[in-house]
């Protein structure tokens, strides 16, 4: 009798491996005999995590120069390992980058690995708060040529050597494809987050090592998909770019900051003198929804800002959770469905990624629909349905308004382009 158990691929590591795992799930989606699971190396294990590690047939594991993957000890010794290098250029390009974190709604919060750059920028920001003018402070930052700039080539060299060492420990060496082009291409959006092209180098190596039949069309489609690690692209300090002869970045290069693109100077101006409350309003609503803060207040937060983000899977999902908690099952089902559809359509683009598994989302939606079907005491049976219909009508009208606005702009443009009457 054939073995009904799927071939289980267990992937562990950091955000780079999360990309690899998501992509593997995509390219093996048509093959029910293959199952892919991922566990982050930095998160504590739950009971089902242990089973995923213990029962796997192959472990795609990340190797780093310093720490061992904590999942390795749980995977059976007999299971083959595919060792993948954890790529990084720690702190070389981003030594002086502002690192704005969406958890902090007013000012940026720096993670430890950008300590140097942020410390210097924090100094400028503190001077601004003490009453100095913003423009000279930003100019001071951009003209800075301190030890971080002076020492950058040596740090760069150290990192290259560290990555070469790592490439030799892995089962395939992605670094050899990267190193010759460091000056002319961007390979990392931030310290660890790779560009899609860099992620594809890792993915193709893993797929080759796995040697399983796969959908090559899905692999090609992935390489053309939206960037995976959005929405923050660390700006490169212009003097650092000069010192390292980086041709892919300069004073005019725009780097993504959530829903906008800024030059390094604009980033610095915002870090030193800016206020991020508006930028982070949606993040705050999502954070409050996840933390199960006051549901009515969180719903109001969503209503105030989510119209700016019409295709945001995370916003849809967590707004649905809040509405669900408020007993608005019809509206909740509408947003659950939208988040679910978005996640199935664009599993890799972060703006659409709802940050919980599709199965869980589907389960929440089913629960919500069951509740809608049940009459509630004191409430008319079809209230939830009416709300959902209203919500759908609202979405339809919004789309119609967009079309009409586009037509109006077009008409204005045509009128202005028409030659004047003789």
């Amino acid at each position, binding site marked *: 009798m054939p073995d009904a158990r799927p071939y289980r691929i267990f992937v562990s590591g950091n955000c780079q491996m999360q990309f690899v795992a998501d992509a593997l799930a995509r390219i093996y989606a048509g093959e029910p005999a293959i199952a892919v699971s991922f566990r982050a190396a930095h998160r504590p294990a739950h009971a089902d995590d242990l089973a995923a590690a213990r029962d796997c047939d192959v472990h795609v594991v990340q190797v*780093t*120069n*310093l*720490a061992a993957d904590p999942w390795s000890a749980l995977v059976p010794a007999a299971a083959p390992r595919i060792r993948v290098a*954890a790529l*990084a250029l*720690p*702190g070389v390009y981003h030594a002086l980058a502002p690192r704005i974190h969406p958890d902090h709604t007013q000012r940026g919060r*720096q*993670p*430890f*690995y*950008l*300590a*140097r750059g*942020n*410390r210097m920028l924090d100094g400028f920001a503190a001077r601004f708060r003490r009453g100095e003018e913003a423009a000279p402070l930003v100019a001071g930052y951009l003209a800075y040529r301190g*030890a971080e700039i002076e*020492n950058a080539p*040596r*740090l760069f060299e*150290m*990192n290259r*050597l*560290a990555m070469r*060492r790592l490439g030799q420990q892995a089962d395939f060496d992605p670094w050899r494809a990267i190193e010759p082009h460091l000056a002319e291409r961007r390979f990392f959006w931030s*310290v*660890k987050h790779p560009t899609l092209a860099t992620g594809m180098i890792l993915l193709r190596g893993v797929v080759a090592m796995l040697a399983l039949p796969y959908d090559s069309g899905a692999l090609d489609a992935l390489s053309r998909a939206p960037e995976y690690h959005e929405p923050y692209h660390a700006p490169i300090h212009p003097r650092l770019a000069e010192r390292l002869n980086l041709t892919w970045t300069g004073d005019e290069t725009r780097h993504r900051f959530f829903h906008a693109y800024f030059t390094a100077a604009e980033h610095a101006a915002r870090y030193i003198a800016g206020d991020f409350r508006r930028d982070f309003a949606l993040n705050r609503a999502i954070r409050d929804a996840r933390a199960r803060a006051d549901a009515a207040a969180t719903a109001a937060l969503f209503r105030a800002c989510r119209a700016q983000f019409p295709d945001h899977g995370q916003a849809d999902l967590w707004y649905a959770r809040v509405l669900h908690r408020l007993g608005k099952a019809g509206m909740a089902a509408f947003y659950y469905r939208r988040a679910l559809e978005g996640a199935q359509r664009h599993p890799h683009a972060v703006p659409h990624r709802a940050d919980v598994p599709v199965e869980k989302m589907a389960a929440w939606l089913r629960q919500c629909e069951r509740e809608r079907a049940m009459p509630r005491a004191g409430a008319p049976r079809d209230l939830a349905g009416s709300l959902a219909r209203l919500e759908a009508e609202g979405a339809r009208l919004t789309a119609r308004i967009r079309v009409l606005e586009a037509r109006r702009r077009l008409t204005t443009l045509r009128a202005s382009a028409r030659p004047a009457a003789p």
Partner: protein
Amino acid sequence: MSDADMLRLIADIVAEESGARRPGRLTRATRAIAVPGWDSLSHARIMLSLEDRLGVRIDIARSYEFDDLGGLVDYLARLTRRADA
């Protein structure tokens, strides 16, 4: 420089380069990865800063091979002696 001085210098540099709170007392038996803020991302910058402060040149590949800080301290001591000679 004594072992204790070297360990204190390392603690200062880790805090400076990682932004983490200054680690408590480090000993020769402490493993780098157990020090808050010291990880594969901050490691190269910690080594660069040690180079700067001690006026030596560190073999980065070698720096990953020490089981504990004792190995690193001995290695740095050898480099500084060589630099002083």
